[in-house]
């Protein structure tokens, strides 16, 4: 964190030794600069809200897709495979465009920019989440299932109290990865006009014509956001480790 602050301070200083930089555009001591900064940061809420909603949905859907993948029934396993392979094969940007422009035509309903963004991100992520959950659940030893079975726990209780707590602990690093990935991919939703971080930056670039400084701020915005998420996951991991010691 200290190094990050150092970087932030050193960037404007760099500008003095080169006329490539024009930090005045986001200089918080100037009135217009402060307004521009505020404008850039105003996309934060939408980015966070959309990503977090999409991730929450994709985890639920991912688990719901993962469980049939381990079913004894061939039909359920096939459903899991088809879902994962098909959804995983669609690029996120294509999925966003398809959901926003295609879905209203297909269903005759409009779900709005936010709805389309969340739906596309959640759908895309759910296939990856499903694979992560499946790997985690399968890593729990057979003996755990057998012990739960001999206690006569039903399927839901077996998963809820015995298997998933152990699986989630193991897949936490992978879930953190996916979380960060989704935060970044949410920038793609700017193409359909979502007023999030990237869209705000694009709009400001058009009016101020200082892409270097504005996109640098954008990079830093994502960096800070993602470092905070990583920090939370690191904390969760260490907490779950110490639970067992």
């Amino acid at each position, binding site marked *: 964190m200290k190094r990050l602050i150092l970087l932030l301070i050193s960037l404007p200083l760099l500008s003095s030794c080169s006329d490539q930089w024009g930090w005045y555009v986001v200089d918080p001591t100037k009135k217009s600069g402060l307004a521009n900064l505020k404008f850039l940061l105003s996309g934060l809420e939408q980015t966070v809200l959309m990503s977090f909603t999409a991730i929450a949905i994709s985890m639920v859907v991912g688990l719901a897709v993962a469980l049939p993948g381990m079913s004894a029934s061939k039909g359920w396993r096939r459903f899991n495979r088809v879902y994962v392979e098909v959804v995983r094969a669609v690029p996120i940007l294509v999925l966003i465009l398809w959901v926003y422009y295609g879905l209203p035509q297909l269903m005759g309903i409009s779900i709005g920019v936010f709805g389309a963004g969340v739906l596309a991100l959640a759908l895309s992520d759910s296939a990856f989440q499903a694979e992560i959950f499946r790997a985690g659940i399968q890593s729990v*030893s057979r*003996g*755990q299932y*057998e*012990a*739960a*079975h*001999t*206690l*006569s*726990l*039903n399927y839901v*209780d077996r998963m809820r*109290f*015995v298997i998933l*707590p*152990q699986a989630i*602990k193991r897949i936490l690093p992978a879930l953190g990865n996916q979380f960060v990935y989704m935060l970044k991919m949410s920038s793609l939703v700017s193409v359909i006009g979502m007023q999030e971080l990237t869209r705000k930056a694009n709009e400001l670039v058009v009016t101020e014509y200082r892409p270097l400084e504005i996109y640098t701020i954008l990079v830093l915005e994502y960096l800070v956001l993602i470092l905070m998420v990583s920090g939370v996951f690191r904390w969760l991991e260490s907490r779950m480790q110490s*639970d*067992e*010691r």
Partner: protein
Amino acid sequence: MASAHPRVVINMQGVDKVFGEFKALDSVSLQVHEGEKMVICGPSGSGKSTLIRCINGLEDIHAGDVFVAPVEANGSRDARIGMVFQQFNLFPHLTVMQNLTLGPMRVSKLSRIDAEARARACLERVQIPEQADKLPRQLSGGQQQRVAIARSLCMEPDIILFDEPTSALDPEMINEVLEVMVGLADSGITMICVTHEMGFAKRVADTMVFMEGGRIVEQSPPEKFFSAPESLRCQQFLAKILHH
């Protein structure tokens, strides 16, 4: 002993179990009576573990029948079958107390207070009441296996199955587990143990079973089993494990 308890609680008829090409059980038939203590031994790969795992449905069978008699206490209900595993299979993320109360609370729908009272009584029976708040990994192997026994007891089983319960233990911990099992045997519960602990078998068994190649080769009371086994293969096996 079997004649004193004539009710058959487990009846297996012509059970076959195959793993790919390997025939783990080859037309096995076996009756277990209420309150009977049965010890099953035999070389590894002879089908002992598979046999008891067929009783509680951990393995599906390919032919034959496994019948477990319902219990007629007040009204009729399915018999509850507990199991103790070679590798303990405690839930590593739960404390000893949580391991013990999970079944009673979720399956028997006991309140937390009742479940914890029952769990404490079970821990008392396996002589480790002071370990309730520890995690399994903080316990020795012998203690873990005793927790596993207590966990089965918490479900108030009618029948309890032991699958080589002392095979994964250091030698100095075997006796503490066997002592608990002897105490359990004295309580009158129906017990089926897969084990090579012949000292234990002599103390508690009503019936000895020797298996080889997925078949029951010898089944007799311990007095006869240890002094005059009929099959040559069983004689050789006993000679090996009793005088090494």
